[in-house]
């Protein structure tokens, strides 16, 4: 049997992804070191993201720790339409897995579009299994980080900033990074998350100095902070509790 050319399988994978979108499953693209699409992993939505990661880490691919989807095109980064589609799928996953999803937008001001492709390649070593990278507008990149809290997204953004600052190709470009996160406790549409991230990106760009900004709306992660009211109740002694109950009555 003669070996299939890569272009023979691209329509197959797209077809499988379209079919998968009609079912309660998640389609993860598996790519190798050259970003060539190697295959498609289809996993039931009920499987937690952490288990997916564990399974992906055990797959026998040369670049198994960096299996990242960068789209079906070999040379070009996926575009905004692809990003929207992937983001919609990931946001649906948030409700299934109950794990947050972060979106990081990266702008390289003063960079040519050819440079953006080089930057994407430079970022590949820091990407995790399940991360989704695409182009964003003509001078930027978008990175979807499934299962990532705002704190971890911030750390990832800082890591990306360091890599880009150390890369010769980006020395003349100014960087800005904007982060937005969708949590399981909030219902968020694709455009809403994109808008939040774009707002933070614009804020970072205005601040300059390679700033990273994250969405104030999802600083509600601080909702985990124990409030004054909660503390007061926790520390109430049994006799005080019954006295308070008696006064309330």
């Amino acid at each position, binding site marked *: 049997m003669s070996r299939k050319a890569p272009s023979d399988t691209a329509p197959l994978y797209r077809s499988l992804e379209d079919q998968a979108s009609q079912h309660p499953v998640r389609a993860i693209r598996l790519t190798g070191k050259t970003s060539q699409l190697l295959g498609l992993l289809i996993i039931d939505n009920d499987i937690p993201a952490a288990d997916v990661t564990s399974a992906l880490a055990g797959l026998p691919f040369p670049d198994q720790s960096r299996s990242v989807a960068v789209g079906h095109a070999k040379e070009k980064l996926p575009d905004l339409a692809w990003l929207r589609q992937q983001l919609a799928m990931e946001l649906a996953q948030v409700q299934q897995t109950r*794990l947050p999803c972060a979106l990081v937008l990266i702008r390289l001001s003063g960079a040519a579009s050819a440079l953006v492709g080089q930057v994407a390649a430079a970022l590949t070593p820091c990407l995790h299994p399940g991360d989704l990278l695409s182009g964003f507008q003509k001078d930027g990149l978008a990175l979807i980080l499934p299962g990532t809290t705002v704190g971890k997204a911030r750390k990832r953004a800082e890591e990306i900033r360091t890599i880009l600052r150390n890369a010769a190709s980006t020395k003349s470009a100014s960087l800005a990074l904007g982060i937005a996160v969708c949590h399981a406790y909030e219902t968020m549409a694709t455009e809403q998350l994109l808008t939040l991230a774009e707002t933070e990106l614009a804020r970072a760009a205005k601040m300059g100095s390679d700033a990273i900004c994250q969405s104030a709306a999802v600083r509600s992660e601080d909702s985990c902070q124990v409030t004054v009211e*909660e503390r007061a109740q926790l520390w109430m002694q049994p006799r005080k509790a019954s006295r308070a109950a008696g006064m309330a009555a």
Partner: protein
Amino acid sequence: MTAKTKRSPKIICISSGKGGVGKTSFSVNVATALSQKGKSVLLIDGDLGLANVDVVLGLNVRHTIRETIEEGRDLASSLVEINPKFHVLPASSGVPEMANLSYEEQALLTSSLEEIIDRFDYVLIDTAAGIGDSVLWFNTWSQENIVILTPDPTSLTDAYALIKVLHSRHDRKRFHLLVNSVQSKKEGQDVFANMSMVLGRFLKITPLALGTMPQDKSVSMAIRQQRPFLLGAPDSKASLEIVAVAERIINL
């Protein structure tokens, strides 16, 4: 991926928020009690950088989880048999890097654990104190979450904060509360009732009562002797309660 095994163990995480409330002593003794009831138990020391399980048991361990993470050593070779029904997976002491595993290291540890846990009925994880990454990760990996608290306001606050984070960010819903170091059963019941009220009012969580452990001299003596108090003082109040707790765990 959950383990594709004939027998899936019950994975139970034991945390507290605050340190020093008796997690490790509880974990060791309830594991001992479960093994005495014929259940095979694996106790994982989840305090990956400041191990305590081996200390409480007086073990001199040669290999720990660290070798698996850093050298790819088979996790099974690090298991220590306490008795045929009770094994321990020890952690390392004085290794701060182990307290902050990377994403890939966590995935490696998860897959390594899933290769060895299917021979056990119960897998207990004695986590570190606090609400760091490893604590949260072990709790989300587990099926049941036990939170240990004492009547002290600091313990109450930290236990509440831990539950709040696990519920709000990781959608955990089922919490079993164990009130430790109580002067009387009534004190334990009052602490549980108050915590239940706060959890219900602010987080809409209804916790489950796992038990109340009395203050008992035999506990501190056993810790100094580096053996479970269940073995050193089987008729003590603490031992009787730990046996009852083990029974409740079996009935979960």
